[in-house]
């Protein structure tokens, strides 16, 4: 009984102390939370050589290559980072951008153009 009462007083004191602490709230649209260095966000591609490795390793079948269009399907992507890990020329990078919500379904198809490598290959 006495012990319970002591614990109750202790909890009251603890709660009261929190009154003077700085709030941990992050006001989101104005301030954004910092993410880690290895955070895997929206994928980015530049300098693809069309080897097709990423298509094979992607567990979600989210990558498509059509001629010179490199397409990430963000509806399928699970941000595992396999594509960027296995790419032989490190063409794919996972950026820190995590604000991917959108009102338009077409925005979820990420389209990157493949440039510059065709001529070298013909040689």
């Amino acid at each position, binding site marked *: 009984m006495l012990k319970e009462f002591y614990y109750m007083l202790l*909890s009251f004191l603890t*709660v*009261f102390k*929190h*009154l003077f*602490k700085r*709030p*941990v*709230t992050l*006001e989101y649209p104005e301030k954004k939370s910092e993410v880690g260095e290895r955070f895997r966000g929206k994928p980015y591609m530049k300098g693809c050589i069309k080897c097709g490795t990423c298509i094979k390793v992607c567990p979600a079948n989210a990558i498509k290559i059509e001629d010179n269009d490199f397409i990430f399907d963000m509806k399928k992507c699970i941000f595992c980072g396999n594509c960027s890990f296995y790419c032989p020329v490190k063409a794919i990078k996972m950026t820190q951008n995590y604000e991917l919500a959108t009102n338009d379904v077409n925005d979820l198809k990420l389209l990157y153009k493949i440039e510059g490598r065709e001529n070298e290959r013909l040689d």
Partner: protein
Amino acid sequence: MNYLYFLYIEFLAKHNIPKIFGDITFYVIPACIIFVALILVILVLVLFERKLLGWFTQRKGPNRVGFWGVLQTLADAFKLLCKENITPIGADRAVFNLAPIIMFLPVLIALGLIPFSSEFTFMNFQTNVLIYVILATFPVLSILLAGWASNNKYSLIGGVRNVAQILAYELPISFTVLSVIVLASSMNLTQITLAQSNQYGVLGWYWFPCIIGFGLMLICTLAELNRCPFDLPEAESELIAGYNTEYSGMRFALFYLSEYGMLFANSLFISVLFLGGYLSPFGKYLSPILFSGPVGNILIYFEQAFWLFAKSFLIIFIFIWVRATLPRLASFDLLKFSWNILLPLSIVNLLLMSLLKFFVGGVYA
């Protein structure tokens, strides 16, 4: 009230308005003042509670609507006004609509009984305390009606739980109030306030000799107001929202309003009984010192009201603190706690106070 009455009649006589007009309108004005003050205080109170709960849990509380979130309550009220009023099929329509209104009335009447300053008590009866104690239990009636008329199992259980709770906690309250009545030898709230003004200042107020009663009163009022940790009638993990499950829009707003109104009224009541009501904690009023002449004499009444409000907000702060700290009790523990611990304690307290009055009577007379 008499002093104000004479001032008012004199003022009317100067402008050649018949006395009968003054007799009729005089009692309308304080009623309007109380009503407007109640609405304003509730608006502040809701924000106060949400801000404090935020700070207690290291959050910021509402801070988007208006500067520092001051308009949040207004925005909520506007949202509730715009919502649809739904009456469920099978509900008892008349009772269902009547319950929120019945709940709001005792709050208004109860506020009229409180002496806000030495001249401003709307209804100054000899037995103010008794009337208040009875009125404070009135919300349970409308909660039971709401629970019954909703035709919903959750509402019904909530209403019935509330009745059991009030039955258990009203007795300790009555005994504690009785001990204060014994100390002050009066049932009039103004007399009780005046009985606490003596040379001991803050220690002369009844919270000091009657510290057990003060604690009991705080606990039991929490239960009577259905606040954490005694908010079983609206325990959302078991009963959705308890008695107001089926209420929406304006009717829900009325429940909400009267809950906070009752919180305010009860905290006023406690501060009158135990914290010296409108008395200044410094022993004498500050306004005659700060402002000389007739202005200071009139400002005394506002200062008295200010002290009363400050004390009541201190008590509300304690209530919110408790809400931020303690989890909800189980239904059975709640009743056991009252019948096994609080009721004997309150009777012991009453005996102690009677003995104190008998032997040391002169000090606390």
